[in-house]
């Protein structure tokens, strides 16, 4: 446990000692701020129009603002995840510091978990910026916090899965660009797989759609926690980290 924390702290320190973390946070805050502004504007204008036309049924902030915004985050996150994970192992392999880690009295799995947790930590920092925006809703409106909490849990699980995949890809190369590009490609594929069920209901399409990382977020976004989705993400995380460990092991045998 202690070793995991040592590695994790060092990784977080590396993110925040370089411009990487600040750049990601700024970009994410800008993009999400724009989404939030848009969603809020739409909500206000539609609400006013409805009132003027006499339809006076209540509009739900959870339904109209929080839910679409959370699915936006789940997709936008896919673009940020490669940037978070690409350096994790590729950089250590390039500079040779992997030799320091691999010859220290620390288990491979502790190194991997430390790095992965740091990546999840940075992603959580991104999410924190969305929370600042949502805080305004609580100040001026009365949304339900429970679906939001479940939405955040879903985002973290989804990101955890993609970050595990990115960590694995980062062990395969010593070139950050290659690691980043490959992770990006994998993230996009896992996203668009979900589109197949739109026109096709064959078994293949169903399987592909089930593989998609984004479709499993839908229920979380609604504020519903379905065990099959949670299990999907947890399995994904486990497999990603498992393959990372195998890859590190094979690096010892090959390099």
């Amino acid at each position, binding site marked *: 446990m202690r*070793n995991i924390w*040592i*590695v994790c702290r*060092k990784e977080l*320190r*590396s993110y925040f*000692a*370089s411009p990487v973390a600040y750049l990601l946070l700024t970009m994410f805050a800008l993009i999400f701020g724009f989404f939030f502004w848009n969603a809020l504007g739409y909500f206000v204008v539609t609400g006013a129009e409805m009132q003027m036309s006499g339809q006076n049924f209540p509009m739900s902030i959870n339904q109209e603002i929080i839910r679409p915004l959370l699915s936006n985050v789940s997709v936008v996150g896919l673009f940020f995840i490669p940037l978070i994970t690409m350096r994790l192992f590729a950089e250590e392999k390039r*500079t*040779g*510091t*992997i*030799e*320091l*880690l*691999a*010859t*220290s*009295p*620390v*288990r491979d799995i502790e190194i991997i978990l430390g790095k992965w947790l740091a990546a999840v930590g940075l992603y959580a920092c991104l999410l924190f910026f969305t929370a600042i925006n949502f805080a305004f809703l609580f100040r001026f409106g009365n949304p339900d916090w429970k679906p939001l909490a479940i939405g955040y849990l879903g985002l973290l699980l989804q990101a955890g899965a993609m970050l595990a995949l990115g960590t694995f890809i980062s062990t395969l190369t010593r070139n950050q660009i290659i690691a980043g590009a490959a992770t990006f490609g994998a993230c996009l594929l896992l996203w668009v797989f979900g589109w197949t069920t739109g026109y096709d209901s064959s078994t293949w399409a169903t399987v592909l759609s089930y593989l998609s990382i984004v479709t499993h977020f839908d229920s979380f976004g609604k504020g519903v926690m379905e065990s099959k989705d949670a299990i999907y993400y947890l399995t994904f995380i486990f497999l990603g980290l498992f393959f990372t460990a195998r890859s590190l092991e094979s690096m*010892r*045998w*090959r*390099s």
Partner: protein
Amino acid sequence: MVPVFAHDPCTRKSNRHLKMITVKELTRKYAHTTAVNQVSFSVAKGQIVGFLGPNGAGKTTTMRMLTCFLPPTSGTATVAGFDVLDQSLEVRKRIGYLPETPPIYPEMETGEYLRFVGRLKGLRGAELEKRVDYVAGRCAVGDVIKKLLGKLSKGYRQRVGLAQAIIHNPDVLILDEPTAGLDPKQINETRDLIKDLAGEHTIILSTHILPEVEQTCEQVIIINKGRVVATDSVANLQSRARNAETTMIEIAPRQGTLDAGEVQQKLERVTGIVHITVKEQRGGGSLFEAESRKGELVRGDLARAVIEAGWDLNELRPASMSLEEIFLQLTGADAAAQNGEAKGGDGSGAASAAAAPTEGEPQSVEEPHA
């Protein structure tokens, strides 16, 4: 074989029998090459051992196996009694490793980095701070403790690399080409530091620079094409090198030209001289090689003979076989090898005995990988 050391002030003799590192028939194969082939050696506690070999000889691979970075294909290696494969974590606790390029994170400050490595190696709290201060002082990096590692010069980085290697006071230090890429002043400082560390740690250092071994190490393991070609103490190698009973004389005529035949005739009369050969004839002075019987002190008589004959004595020096020549002789079957071998005499006994297992074997026909 436990070698006897003439110069060895800093290590405790009582520990000599303890084997800190034992390597038996260690082999490491890559896809197409065998980087390390049946290497066996052992290192006693407190020794500095030089791992000498040309680039690509298998030095780094052997060191990586000792540090548990690479698992061996076959064979065993134990460090402080622990097996590198089965008790890897125990071995890693007892080893400090400086790879060829110091494993530093450019975005970290020196002190922060040393603390991080210290924690990785299991130090904490007050003990960690104490060790960081100690190694920073020991490796002279105290003045850059707040600087980013990425901004340090090569010499400082190397010293930070050494500092991280000794932070947990390991039994064994493994240093891969610790002086590569440094300037002469830094090289000397690093060598002094390594010699200084020898009392507390058992050290293996690899190098392809011969004088480095001569200056720093007590024992040498010469490795070539993945095989150990010789293990011997530096003192023995040096005495072997000096034992050649050959003297080089440069003689110039006072006027006219020098008759080589006359020189040979006159000098061969000197007691103890067996044979005089002309090495080089030049206008200014000619170079001769005088072979003498073992144990005879001939230099004084030679000088007198030259002067009495009315020539100028420009130079008179014992022709020692350089470590380079020994090295080439052991590692390659090229022309340099034939030069000194015959003259080695009994002084080379120890070294040739050590090299015996490989003698007579056909030289490996594998491609030397770069």
